[in-house]
C-alpha cells in the first residue's frame, strides 16, 4: 500500500520511494528512505497535506507525494 492510504495514527515501514528529480531527492534527504519507520499523525483541515512523524521529528508532505511512497504497515 502507499503512505497516502495509511490511516491516521498508524505506523508503517517505507519500502520504496517513487517520484523523480528534485522532489524525490528532497524526500530522501529528509530521511524518508527505504526501511525507515513512519507514522501518520494528522491530515490538514482541508484534507491535504498530511503530517508524518519519522526519525524523531515532524514532517508534512502532500498527498500527491505520499502516493508515490510504498509502505508495509506495522
Amino acid at each position, binding site marked *: 500500500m502507499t503512505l497516502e492510504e495509511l490511516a491516521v495514527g498508524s505506523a508503517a515501514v517505507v519500502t520504496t520511494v517513487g517520484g523523480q528529480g*528534485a522532489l524525490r531527492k528532497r524526500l530522501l534527504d529528509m530521511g524518508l528512505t527505504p526501511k525507515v519507520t513512519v507514522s501518520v499523525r494528522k491530515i490538514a483541515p482541508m484534507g491535504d497535506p498530511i503530517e508524518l512523524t519519522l526519525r*524523531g521529528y515532524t514532517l508534512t508532505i502532500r498527498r500527491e507525494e505520499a502516493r508515490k511512497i510504498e509502505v508495509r504497515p506495522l
Partner: protein
Amino acid sequence: MKELTFALIGNPNCGKTTLFNQLTGSNQHVGNFPGVTVDKKEGRVRSHPDVVVVDLPGIYSLSPYTAEEVVSRDFLLHGNPAGVINIVDATTLERNLYLTLQLVELRIPTVLALNMMDEVRANGGYIDVAAMEAELGIPVVPISASKNEGVEELCSRAIRAAREKALPRRVDFCTGEVHRAIHSITHLVEQKAELAAIPARFAASKLAEGDPLMADSLHLTESERHLLEHLLSEMEAAHGMDREAAMADMRYTYIEKLCAQTVVRPGDTKEQLRSVEIDKVLTSKFWAIPIFFGIMVTIFFLTFGLIGPFLNSIMEEALDLVALGLSGALVRWGVNPTLRSLVLDGAFAGVASVLSFLPTIVTLFFFLSLLEDSGYMARVAFVTDRLLRRIGLSGRSFVPLLIGFGCSVPAIMATRTLASERDRKMTIRLTPFMSCSAKLPIYSVFTLAFFPKHRALVMCCLYFGGMLVGILYGLLLKNTAFKGNPIPFVMELPAYRLPSPKSVLLHMWEKAKDFLVKAFTIIFVASLVVWCLQSFDFGFNPVDDSSRSMLASVSRLIAPIFIPLGFSDWRAATALVTGLSAKEAVVSTLSVLLGAGDAELPTLLAGFFTPLQAVSFLTFTLLYMPCVAAMAAVKREMGGWKAAVSLMAQQTGVAWLVALFVYQGGRLLGLG
C-alpha cells in the same frame, strides 16, 4: 593575525540565526549572494574581531536543486572559508547529521555545534560527546544558543581547528557495494576534481547520487561518463536500490548506528510533546482556520489600527515641529519662496513620506518574527497549502499575500522567509494585486460619490476583484514564466518554541534599516521629481495654476491612453501619476485639480465621471503598478531594476486590459 572566515551552516529551525546573533550581536551586514535573492548575512564575532561568520541559508542537504542549496555549495567549495561551523538540533539529531556527513567530505576544518542541549538534558537525554567526536572525526561542542551556553567554547574550538587546519579525520561512512562504487569513482575523477578545485571525495559522492551539476563542473569526458554509469549500474544492481536511494540509505544507516552508540533519547522531548498538544487546537479540523484568521485580524488591527497610527502620530508631531522650525528659519534667512517650497514641499515631504511607512514595517515585522520564530508560520503553511497549490505556490506564501492587504512594502519584504527563490519571485508578483490599505481612501471617496447606497458591496467587489485577477495572473505565471516543477512542499513542522527577544528585535531593526537605506533614495528622488513637475512649467517658471505645470502637460500627453477605458481627462491621468508616490495621493490630487475642498469632492466627482467611468477608473487604480516604496522593495527582493520594471509594466498592462474589459463590457450592456 590573519582574518578567518567561517561558514555557519545547518538545517532550518535548528537555532542557526540565534547562534549567529549571539556570535555577532548587531555587527551584521545583510546582502544577497551574487545573482540570486538569497540572504547572505555576514558579521564579525564580538569576542574575536578578527573572525568573520557568513550565515549560509538553512538547508537539509547539499543537493543541487534549490538556489539556497546551490549558493551554500558554491560558497563552501569556492568561497575559501577557513572553517565550517555546522549547527545541529540535538533533539532531532538523525536528520540534522545528514548534512554533516556531506560537509565533512569537503575537506574544510569543521566543528559540530550540538544545539538545544538544555532541552536534551531537561528531558533526561544524554549525548556521549567524546564518543561522537571520535566517531565523526571532528570537534563536537554541546551548546545552547538561546541561553548563550557553550558558544564561547565553540568559538575557540572552531578557531583552533581553522588555525591548525585540522581537517575532518574521517570521510568514509559507507560499507559494501556503495563503498566500492564510491572508491572507484573517487579514483576515476581524482585528477579532474583537483583541476576543478573540488574535493575528490565530495565529487565522488555527488556523482554517485546522480547529481547533474557535478558531472558538468568536473568536465567529464564521454568515456568517463560511460564508465561512471557502468559503476553506478553495478552498484544499483548489487545494492537493490537506485543510486539516490542507496546514497541516502547509506548515510542514514550510518547515522542510526552512530546515534544508537552515542545518544540516549528517552522519547520525545517536552517541547515536542507540548507541540503535539498545541497542534491539537492550532491545526485541528475545526479550529485551525478560525484561529489563523483571528490571529491575522488581531495583527492587522494592532498594526494598522492601533500601534501603527499611534507611532505615526508621534512621528508626525515630531516632523511637524521640525517643519515649523525649518520653515521659520528659511523665512528668517530670507530664502526665496521657490527654494523654500523645494525644501519643505519637495525634500521634507519626501522624507516624511518615507518615514510614514516605518511604523507599519516595524510593527508588522515584530509580529511576523513572533509567528516565524515560534514555529506557527509552518503551521499556517500546513493549513493553507491547499488553497494556493492550484496557482503553483505553497501555503508558505499565504501570510505575505495576506499582508499585502495592509501594505505591499512589508508584504514584499516578508517573502524573504519563503523557502525557495521561485516561490519568492512569484509571490512578489502577486502581492500588489492584493488591494493595499492606502487605496481605501480612494474607494471611500468614489463609492460615496457614485454608489452611496452600496458602498460596502462595491468595496468588496474591488477587493475580491483584485484577488481574482491575482489568481488568474498566478495561473498565467504558473504556465509560462514559472513553468516546470515547483519546489516540492516537503516541510518540517518544528517544535513550538518561545521566540528570543533578541532575535525578534534584531529582525525588526534589520528590516527597518533595510527599508530606510534602500528605499530612502528612491522615494526621496521620486518625491522631488513629482514636486518639480507640479511646481514648474517647461521653462522652469514657477506656476500658480497647476493646469500649466509640467505634470499637467505630461498628463495631457499620456491621457489618450485612457480613452478606451473611458476617462481621457488629463486630471484623471495626473491623479494616477501622483498616485505612484503614494496611493492616497490620487484623492488629494483630484481634489486640488477639481478645486474642491474635502467635503465637496464627492459631489464634484459625480459630475466629473459617469458611474461606469468611475468603475473603470477604480479598477485601473486597484490593479496598476504599485507605489515607489513598493517598487523599491520589489527591486531589492527581485534583485534589480530589470525585474522591477518588468513587474511595473506587466501590472499596468493587466490593469489597462481589465479596466478596458470593464468599461467596454459595461457599454455593451448599456450601462454607460
